[in-house]
């Protein structure tokens, strides 16, 4: 009988990623309702030390797979080992992060296990012991409550949505067999972004600019505000297509879907494709000189004025507030 909740932890370069703690806390909450165990799969090279931190966030048992072939992440190797650990331990529910790696891995593993997967969930609950996963569809224009009629029930959780709360458990380590065959894919190079900014999908604060920024130079004032708020700068598609900002900065239906605590939209009209990418943000601020701009329909706070005047003032105000 399938039992318990298993999370597939994600680490990079010797540290757990924040999503792993969000997964652990969420799994703990679910498992406590049925009095079951939370286990974790942790793969990589030299990762055993991270098991203790998973324990701190509610994991009872950590299956550690340590092998140089698992670092850096290669889909097929991770999928093979992860699927084997799941099969051998038969959890009722498996949770992945809906990060780039988690999405890549979860779909492959679900296919290996011939089961269903609910992607990018923003809520999970139990109903009569069965998982009900709520996930945005049509880029957040509606939501679906997904149930999975196969075992295990697999879901990936959107980063930054589920709280990570300490709840110390054993985090006892069990080593697993990690024999993986010759891989057809090879990572040739990892080119790190040296800006030191967190990725938009993981940022707590995003300051975004659109066509209203008038050109690439305009973004300097957004960078300053983002710096003060420890945030990351995003952009509308119009700004990306104009070549003012790199593709990775685009928020929206054909860019990144983000859920920060604070999203500040400057000189963005609020086209439906842009709103699709950011309307799950917890607090939305719009700064736009056109009072009729659709962005104001989603904004918690709107400022109708010239952004080139408001943003520098706001930066000065915030500097004092956070000091």
């Amino acid at each position, binding site marked *: 009988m399938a039992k318990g909740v298993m999370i597939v932890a994600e680490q990079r370069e010797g540290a757990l990623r924040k999503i792993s703690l969000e997964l652990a806390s969420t799994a703990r909450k679910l498992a406590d309702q049925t009095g079951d165990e939370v286990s974790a799969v942790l793969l990589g090279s030299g990762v055993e030390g991270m098991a203790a931190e998973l324990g701190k966030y509610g994991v009872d048992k950590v299956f550690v797979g340590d092998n140089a072939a698992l670092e850096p992440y290669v*889909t097929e190797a991770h999928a093979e080992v992860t699927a084997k650990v799941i099969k051998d331990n038969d959890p009722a529910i498996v949770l992945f992060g809906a990060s780039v790696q988690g999405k890549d891995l979860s779909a492959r593993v679900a296919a290996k296990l011939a089961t*269903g997967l609910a992607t990018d969930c923003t809520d999970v609950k139990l109903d009569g012991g069965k998982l009900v996963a709520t996930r945005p569809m049509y880029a957040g224009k509606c939501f*679906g409550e997904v149930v999975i009629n*196969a075992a295990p029930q697999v879901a990936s959780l959107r980063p930054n949505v589920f709280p990570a709360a300490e709840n110390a458990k054993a985090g006892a380590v069990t080593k697993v067999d990690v024999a993986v065959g010759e891989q057809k894919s090879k990572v040739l190079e990892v080119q790190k*972004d040296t800006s030191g900014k967190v990725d938009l999908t993981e940022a707590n*604060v995003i300051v975004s600019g659109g066509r209203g920024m008038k050109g690439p130079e305009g973004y300097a004032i957004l960078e300053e505000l983002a710096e003060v708020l420890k945030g990351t700068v995003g952009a509308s598609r119009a700004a990306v297509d104009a070549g003012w900002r790199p593709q990775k900065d685009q928020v929206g239906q054909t860019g990144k879907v983000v859920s920060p605590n604070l999203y500040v939209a400057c000189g963005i009209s609020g086209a439906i494709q842009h709103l699709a990418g950011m309307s799950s943000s917890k607090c939305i601020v719009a700064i736009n000189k056109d009072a009729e701009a659709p962005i104001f329909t989603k904004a918690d706070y709107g400022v109708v004025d010239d952004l080139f005047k408001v943003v520098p003032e706001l930066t000065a105000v915030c500097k004092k507030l956070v000091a």
Partner: protein
Amino acid sequence: MNIIACVKQVPDTEAQIKVKADGSGIEEGQIKWVMNPYDEFGVEEALKLKEKNGGDVTVISVGPARAMETIRTALAMGADKGVHICDPAFDGADAYVVANALAAVIKTLPHDIIFCGQRAIDDDAGQVGAMLAEALGVPQLTLVTKLEFAGSSVKVIRPIEGAQLSIETALPCVVTAQKGLNEPRYASLPGIMKAKKKPVDVKDAAAIGVATDAKAKVAKTIPPPARPPGKIVCGDDPAQKAAELGRLLREEAKVI
């Protein structure tokens, strides 16, 4: 080169989505249907590979009768032939079912590289590419923004959070496309005329021999949670508005 591009017909990004009163899905009446935007990047990359290396591009779609329009769009862009997997049995299919249906057809065709979109903008599952790769037993390269073909392998760029990976993979493989990979071409008028005569093979579930029962089901569709109405921040000048906004963000929203 034998190139396959998987395409899905989805509601236009401008579409207003209205949930049916009983939560059983969305109202489809007013919707304009288009090729999934990410699939346009996949088809474009397929055509570019063919133009450079020779070969043949086959587009495949699982969907109701209207999905034929999307196959014709890809043919008008320059693809050579199509396969339309069309059967009411696929109503309510999930990514697993769709991926296995695509795999069943692709196994019968020569294939060096298969393109999917990174996700379909309706269900937003982002699963089919990886599940298809598993069903075919080939590697997957998801969220690709650059691709170079090198004979028996491809080299791609794949952005992850805070870094870019350069990955080399032996063919055949599945590649999922995202914005940045290329600029999809528009179908030309002669292209549209030619597309009408290109062959499209229509197959039902029995012909491809796959199970159609979904593992994941949307039990209920619900409208997004309503946001409380916003406030317009008042003030005589930009400085006052900024000060008031800062105060609200600190004291009321508690986000800074």
